[in-house]
């Protein structure tokens, strides 16, 4: 039956729905789910944008629950992480990056204060058992993620308390012991069996573990200082940096020279320098081959320390000597009376690789009565000799799988440095534990492990018209004169600050639920869903009517929509 003409040619309301304008389209809008740059930069694999979004919705507990799906130790990382997320934050190009680090800390503290329970994942209880060696950040993370996946996990550590280097190498001024106790204590209560005072090689062997357990994760850290000498010379009373720090942390004892030079550019060097300076040592020098952060410094060649910590160290009177190395020890007998430094720089060689070149004629002398190497640590081979086989670190892939050793995994400072996954931070260790847990689960479930990998959203993909400039929160720092050996120097945000700061998040690459697409579609082809749509958006494209004009993509503030050519 054809449609018949009516009186006066009137039409019924909304009858245009019979006309499917979607056929006009040559490109269609899709939700792209690019990673926020913070997420891409996070060694722990956190999706900061996701939990900031929950904070924007006023749901701190949900935000924390989202956070701990990747990082179970936010109160700790919120204090010690060098937060590459903030360096990557797109907002940094607009005004100032989001204070992700501070918000993370606040969330971690809130969880402790309110005793929020770690979320329980659903799934079958697994019969398999997994041994974790080392209760540092990597081991704790692996244990946590495997427990989440319902495995029987036994966590071994040679020390009486869990925490690894968190306790042994980080001063309480940066990480109060109460925070370690609280957060790790809560973590261990998620169902992890913890066996302290059990050292590999001494109390158990790797072979025993491998026969008793279905998989073994080695998070043994790098506990042995790297060998250090200057042209073969070593002072008789040489103290290594990490050992000094551990001793001070354990018993409060510290040598008191008049002037000391610390050789190295990592956290150990800077932490020790600050401890020694606060202990009243007049001249504390740090000699490092890296540069200080600054506009002229190659980003690949910067001191591996949180910039704020560096600032504080300088404030406190630590003297830095960047782009230098110790060329010669000036000895009086077997005692050091000075060091000769020379300038150097990381430069590309003939093959294009960068290596350090020292410049003759730039030598200077520092008069000190003590020299402390803090150039890094390697794995203590005890119990791992036939795995390590003279190497400094365990050779692994991105999932921590040790070459040629099925069922054996490693992570944290104990593993080799991978280009895509640099280690040496607490966050990186937590990320290692998480990825290894995935790999162990995959192994035991006979599947391939997966790690989410999404491109980060470039700044240029944002539509900045929709954002207003707003200043980043400023966080309190203990005044110089109030600093001591115990008081935490850095303060965190209060609730209002944290909630306000979260509102600054651009929501890069992910739906901001701002209604722009819904509001600006001339064709009524964007539908708002009452519940969050399957893909994490709050909107659906109605492709029956979408003409593919691209307005929604252009006006999406956060780069969540892109136009895809129709086949």
């Amino acid at each position, binding site marked *: 039956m054809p449609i018949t003409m009516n009186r006066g040619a009137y039409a019924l309301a*909304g009858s245009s729905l019979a006309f499917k304008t979607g056929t006009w389209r040559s490109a269609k809008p899709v939700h792209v789910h690019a990673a926020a740059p913070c997420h891409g930069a996070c060694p722990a694999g956190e999706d900061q944008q996701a939990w900031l979004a929950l904070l924007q919705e006023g749901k701190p507990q949900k935000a924390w629950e989202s956070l701990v799906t990747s990082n179970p130790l936010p109160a700790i990382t919120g204090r010690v992480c060098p937060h590459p997320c903030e360096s990557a934050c797109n907002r940094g190009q607009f005004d100032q990056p989001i204070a992700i680090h501070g918000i993370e800390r606040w969330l971690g503290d809130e969880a402790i204060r309110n005793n929020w329970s770690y979320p329980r994942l659903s799934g079958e209880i697994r019969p398999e058992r997994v041994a974790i060696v080392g209760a540092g950040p990597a081991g704790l993370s692996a244990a946590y993620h495997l427990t989440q996946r319902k495995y029987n996990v036994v966590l071994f550590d040679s020390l009486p308390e869990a925490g690894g280097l968190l306790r042994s190498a980080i001063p309480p001024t940066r990480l109060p012991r109460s925070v370690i106790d609280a957060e790790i204590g809560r973590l261990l209560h998620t169902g992890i069996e913890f066996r302290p005072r059990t050292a590999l090689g001494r109390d158990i062997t790797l072979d025993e573990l491998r026969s008793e357990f279905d998989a073994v994760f080695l998070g043994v850290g790098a506990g042995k200082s790297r060998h250090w000498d200057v042209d073969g010379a070593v002072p008789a009373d040489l103290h290594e940096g990490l050992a000094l720090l551990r001793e001070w942390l354990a018993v409060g004892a510290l040598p008191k020279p008049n002037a000391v030079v610390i050789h190295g550019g990592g956290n150990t060097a800077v932490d020790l320098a600050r401890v020694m300076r606060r202990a009243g040592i007049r001249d504390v020098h740090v000699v490092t081959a890296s540069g200080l952060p600054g506009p002229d410094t190659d980003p690949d060649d910067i001191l591996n320390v949180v910039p704020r910590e560096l600032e504080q160290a300088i404030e406190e009177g630590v003297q830095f000597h960047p782009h230098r190395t110790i060329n010669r020890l000036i000895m009086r007998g077997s005692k050091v009376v000075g060091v000769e430094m020379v300038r150097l720089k990381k430069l590309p060689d003939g093959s294009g690789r960068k290596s350090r070149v020292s410049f003759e004629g730039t030598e200077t002398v520092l008069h000190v009565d003590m020299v402390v190497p803090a150039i890094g640590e390697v794995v203590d081979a005890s119990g791992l000799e036939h795995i390590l086989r003279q190497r400094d670190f365990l050779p692994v892939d991105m999932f921590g799988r040790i070459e040629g050793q099925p069922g054996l995994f490693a992570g944290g400072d104990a593993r080799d440095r991978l280009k895509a996954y640099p280690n040496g931070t607490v966050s990186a260790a937590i990320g290692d534990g998480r990825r290894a847990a995935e790999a162990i689960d995959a192994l035991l479930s006979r599947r391939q492990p997966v790690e989410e990998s999404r491109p980060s959203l470039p700044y240029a993909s944002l539509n900045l018209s929709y954002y207003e400039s707003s200043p980043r929160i400023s966080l309190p720092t203990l005044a110089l004169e109030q600093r001591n050996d115990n008081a935490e120097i850095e303060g965190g945000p209060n609730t209002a600050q944290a909630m306000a700061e979260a509102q600054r998040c651009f929501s890069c690459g992910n739906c901001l639920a701002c209604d722009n697409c819904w509001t600006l579609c001339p064709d*009524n082809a964007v539908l708002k869903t009452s519940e969050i749509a399957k893909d994490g958006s709050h909107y659906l494209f109605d492709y029956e009517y979408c003409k593919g004009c691209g307005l929604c993509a252009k006006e999406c503030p956060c780069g969540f929509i892109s136009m895809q050519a129709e086949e």
Partner: protein
Amino acid sequence: MTQTTNDPRARQPRFRGLEAGHRACQGCGEALAARLVTESAGPDVILTNATGCLEVFTTPWPQSAWRVPWLHSLFENSAAIASGVEAALKAQGRRSKVIAMGGDGGTFDIGFQALSGMLERMHNVLYVCYDNEAYMNTGIQRSGSTPHAAMTTTSPPGKERMGKRHLKKDLLSIIAAHHIPYAASASVAYPQDLRRKVRRAMEIDGPTFLLVHSPCPLGWGHDGSETIEIARLAVQTGLFPLVELERGEVASVMPLRQKVPVSDYLKLQGRFRHLFVDSDHRAREEREHLQALADYNMERYGLFGDGDDPFDADGADTVRRGGPARA
């Protein structure tokens, strides 16, 4: 068209005055403006529509994209038929609001007399002019609203001409002279502002007028995806000031935060392409002329704010999670 309750379209948390399936061009500013106006006005309205794109693309019989009663008669009588509808409602004691709609051709030019009459007689009608600055329905001919120097098919640039010779008619001032309770300009680039102005007008018992800047991708020569970007620049450059008039007096303006040069706006559009021919000395002169017109607007309406207004031309479209900053 029946819709099941599972259909998310049937459960949208806003009123849909203009339904999908209409036949506007991709990225049509007028369709967007009409959608925003009708959804802000709500279901208890009766629309009249001048002949033009909006009328043609919404009602090819037997279909209609309108979900509110809608009446089209001619190019030049939207205001007059609206007067009649309003008189009938009054006679019947019905209280629905009447919204008359027209493009710039139907409002600035051919329908102007009917509009003036409607305003003078104080009919309780909101008149909305979707201003896309030319006769688009017939294929882009210049209207009284076409900006100076713009290229249309009847104001082509050439050896003797640089696009439209005359100025854009200052319709709002003419409307203001009718001493009506409320008149305002708005833009599709600022939907919250537009919605607020529609709601404001809806509350007034008497004639009100809204001039909505609505880019036409086809007529202005830009991609459909750039409609909002261009409309925003028209406001930010001062070429299309957003103002509110009460009884003919300026009651408020959307202030500008920073001075955006008009060339930022012009260069995105094909209709001003001839103003960017480096070898033509007239091009620069006309660009300067347009800049002077924008400067004039800024001075006349005092468009420069103190930078503190969060809802100035930079801040008014700010969003946050869960929606626009200014709901």
